[in-house]
């Protein structure tokens, strides 16, 4: 624990915890929408923003937020318009994003080390300014995702019904897209572009092995995210491993543990439901004789 007396380690821990809490809070909506890998795509686009920031000598994180938001909005518009050409358009955006990023970083005077910091994360180099950015944006994401949960749940669960309920579906979709971009960009410093989706998706995947409802899944996923971030940074500090990779591996380890526990729990439950509710297994032939 002695390492955590150093301010840079404290910043790393606090930054990781904020991201560990915010990323699953957003990720649950993406998983529900079967867009689990969208964070990865937006991350690729964010890399172009990092490259542009380094080249223009502006804050890479700030430029990345803007570029990633534009990318996420484009993806959302493609998604909303049509289904068939969607995946090709997304592929173009993803690979364009990462190629653009690598090229722009190369054009700037930065070393390959700075590219690595964004690809795989670099928690220990977080400055106090970085931490403020992460805290403010992370809090904004958390508050939005929690306050708008009923509406966001509705559009992700049944978009058509949400439309007929008069919800501002397009605005909420765009909000979700921008929130994804913001989360990706702040998480980039912690776990890196290549591992961002893991923090958004793995805690949710783990939580839903044992939960029964959306709200409980969200709470459990945020708890697991917090645990993975904290324990990952702790392991990294003591074993001198890469923090981003350690955080993600802790998340995956918690998934494995919860999934195993879930198998036993579900077997028990299934027996109980089948015994308690005979109509669930009623043969469909019953209807035929009536119609």
């Amino acid at each position, binding site marked *: 624990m002695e390492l955590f007396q150093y301010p840079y380690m404290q910043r790393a821990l606090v930054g990781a915890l904020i991201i560990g809490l915010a990323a699953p809070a957003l990720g649950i909506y993406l998983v*529900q929408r079967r867009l689990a890998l969208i964070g990865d795509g937006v991350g690729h686009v964010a890399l172009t923003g990092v490259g542009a920031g380094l080249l223009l000598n502006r804050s890479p994180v700030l430029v990345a937020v803007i570029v990633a938001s534009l990318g996420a909005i484009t993806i959302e518009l493609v998604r909303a318009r049509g289904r068939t050409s*969607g995946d090709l358009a997304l592929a173009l955006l993803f690979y364009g994003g990462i190629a653009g990023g690598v090229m722009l970083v190369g054009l700037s005077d930065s070393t390959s080390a700075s590219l690595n910091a964004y690809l795989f994360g670099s928690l220990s180099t977080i400055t106090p300014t970085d931490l403020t950015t992460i805290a403010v944006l992370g809090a904004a994401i958390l508050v939005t995702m929690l306050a708008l949960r*009923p509406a966001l749940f509705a559009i992700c669960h049944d978009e058509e019904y949400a439309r007929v*309920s008069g*919800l501002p579906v397009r605005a909420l979709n765009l909000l979700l897209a921008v929130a994804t971009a913001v989360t990706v960009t702040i998480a980039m410093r912690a776990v890196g572009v290549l591992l961002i989706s893991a923090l958004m998706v793995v805690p949710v995947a783990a939580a839903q092995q044992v939960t029964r409802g959306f709200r409980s899944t969200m709470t459990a996923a945020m708890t697991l995210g917090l645990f993975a971030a904290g324990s990952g940074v702790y392991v990294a500090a003591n074993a001198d491993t890469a923090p981003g990779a350690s955080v993600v591996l802790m998340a995956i380890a918690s998934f494995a543990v919860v999934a195993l526990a879930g198998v036993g729990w579900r077997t028990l439950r299934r027996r109980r439901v089948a015994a308690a509710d005979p109509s669930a297994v009623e043969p469909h032939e019953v*209807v035929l004789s009536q119609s």
Partner: protein
Amino acid sequence: MSAPVITVTRAAIGYEGRAVLRDVSLTVTSGEVVAVLGANGSGKSTLTRAVLGLVPLSSGSVELFDQPARRFRQWHRIGYVPQRLGAGGGVPATVGEVVAAGRLARRGILRPPGRADRRAVATALAAVGLADRTGDPVSTLSGGQQQRVLIARALAGEPELLILDEPTAGVDAASQAAFAGALQEFVAGGGTVLLVAHELGPLRPLISRAVVVHAGGIAHDGPVPEPAGHHADPDHDHVHPHGPNEPAGLWSA
């Protein structure tokens, strides 16, 4: 009791250049229970989706509660029951959470749910006989029970008009009866219903008027046609009501 609730005037609808409905006019007045009948693919679902603004009209107009659909904003007056629950992604949701979404039209997106919301959800679930399943994940319910969850979601918003798209297709007998009971209660309370159906089954006694969609137009508007004649229609394309669900699209919610 004769204020028009839905007015469709000379509506034409097409998908990618292919006309589904050519010239359809339909008026539903307050308190009516109108069944839209027709063969599979006749466009009866398309007609209701157009009324809800989910499918654009290529010509003609739709009015809801005496307002042009384009300017209509009082969505809490309408309860929509889709054909089936969307796949809804991998995240579990409880019956109560799905039904609570029916309150959003009334409450708006920023206000947290209050006591009235919780009471409406409980009442709606009791009306369809699922009060004891509130905390269960919807994925553990049978197809018929899931369909009842959808009508509970619509009822929770305390609407004046219910629009149902094939509510009883593939639904077990117990659920059909619960469904008919809930609908009867709604109608007795002065509600208006527009209902797409392939077969009416236990809903038949509730229907006050039937509209048959055929060949892109309305072939019949009046009393419920005799089932024998309807089933004897050479164009009647009987699809088994218990067929497998359509696979959900990759990007569909």
